[in-house]
């Protein structure tokens, strides 16, 4: 067996790949499910915190800033482990799926809150004043005038962050979520061959590449002429 053949046999073993393809596909579905949930809940929670912060009530804002800084500072894996192994001692036993979802949601919430907040504060004061001077309430000015502009500004950093954090679904393998990496790892142990990992990598590319492209498309589409 030449080196090249050995390489192919190790990472592109067709027999092993065929055998574990269904597992990887199942893992892909779990990853999609987890990723979609994280994106929705993380962005909604982040936007909600940013809106709450824009009201400008100091005690609330201090709490928001502390929470956000905390979850930006902690490595996502630490949060996952903490929730999965730590919460049961407090009488709650979230499943590995829920633990991973909750952890990544908190992280995406924290980062997206900062991005939304930066977007909101970057809108010139004159936009608020124009809106308020025509009789729009604070909330109406925020929803109709400030937020649409802020969200357009935040799309590039937001898509980057969202993709980066969503890829963290692979961390779920540590607490045995049967997502792509988890399924691939156990296939590797069962088959004594790393080829399933290649399949897993391919699945990630197929999954996240469209997200990257979608992000780019959104950036172009949401731009408006100045």
């Amino acid at each position, binding site marked *: 067996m030449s080196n090249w053949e050995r390489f192919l046999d190790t990472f592109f073993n067709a027999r092993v790949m065929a055998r574990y393809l269904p597992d990887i596909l199942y893992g892909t579905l779990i990853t999609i499910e987890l990723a979609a949930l994280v994106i929705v809940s993380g962005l909604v929670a982040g936007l909600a915190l940013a809106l709450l912060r824009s009201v400008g009530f100091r005690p609330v804002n201090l709490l928001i800033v502390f929470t956000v800084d905390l979850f930006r500072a902690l490595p996502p894996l630490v949060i996952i482990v903490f929730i999965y192994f730590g919460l049961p001692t407090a009488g709650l036993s979230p499943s590995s799926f829920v633990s991973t979802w909750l952890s990544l949601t908190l992280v995406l919430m924290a980062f997206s809150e900062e991005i939304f907040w930066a977007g909101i504060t970057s809108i*010139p004061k*004159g*936009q608020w*004043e*124009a*809106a*308020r*001077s*025509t*009789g*729009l*309430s604070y909330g*109406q000015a925020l929803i*109709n*005038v400030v937020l*649409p*502009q802020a969200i*357009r500004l935040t799309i590039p950093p937001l898509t980057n962050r969202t993709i980066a954090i969503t890829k963290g679904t692979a961390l779920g393998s540590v607490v045995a979520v049967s997502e792509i990496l988890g399924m691939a790892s156990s296939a590797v142990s069962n088959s004594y061959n790393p080829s399933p990992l290649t399949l897993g990598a391919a699945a990630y590319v197929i999954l996240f590449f469209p997200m990257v492209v979608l992000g780019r498309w959104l950036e172009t589409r949401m731009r*408006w*002429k*100045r």
Partner: protein
Amino acid sequence: MPGKAVVEARGIHKHYGALHVLKGVDLVVAERELVFVIGPSGSGKSTLLRCLNRLEEPSSGSVLVDGVDLLDPRTDLNHARQRIGMVFQSFNLYPHMTALGNVTLALRKVAGKSRAEADELGRAALARVGLADRAGHTPGELSGGQQQRVAIARAIALEPRVMLFDEPTSALDPELVGSVLGVMRDLRESGMAMVVVSHEMGFARNAADRVLFMDHGSIVEEGTPAAIFESPSQQRTRAFIGQIQRH
């Protein structure tokens, strides 16, 4: 001066920390009257204007617009503000909306018009400023002068009782100033009460009923344009008029 008062501001003080920006200013604007406010930068003229619709919170004093006490906590400020149009130096159009969208937003959200009604009123307002054919354009596609005219349309669409202009032509290239002043002149002829903070002395001479000269947070002198520009009685007024007329 004919007509009853549309704006009645009394004893307006404004402090920013230790800074005393307005020192007990009185300003009464009658129906159909155009009051022109001049003064060096930092004299408090913009702050005074912004107190008239409470974009700036007066530290003390009273502001009545169309008989409504703006500083009364029971006053529905958002409702009252429909009656007070404001035009800003930097236009402040909403860049993500078309000209028509800019004009109709408050009509729909504040005045409670249906989209069809708002569109109709919005198009009429744009026609009044000579931009009926630009309804579908976004601010980025319009010149500065056109943007400022859309901003005027946005305010007059709500049928205000008084219009406040905060240096409406200062951000414009010289060749675009005329179109905005033209719209303001039309508005004035239609009988709109107006308070204009500006350095457009030619416009003041032609269109103003009264000119106020402000300095250091007080009204130093007021009178007809002729009186203020030709024969000011105060030394500070003379110095200021001399400075702006030299260029």
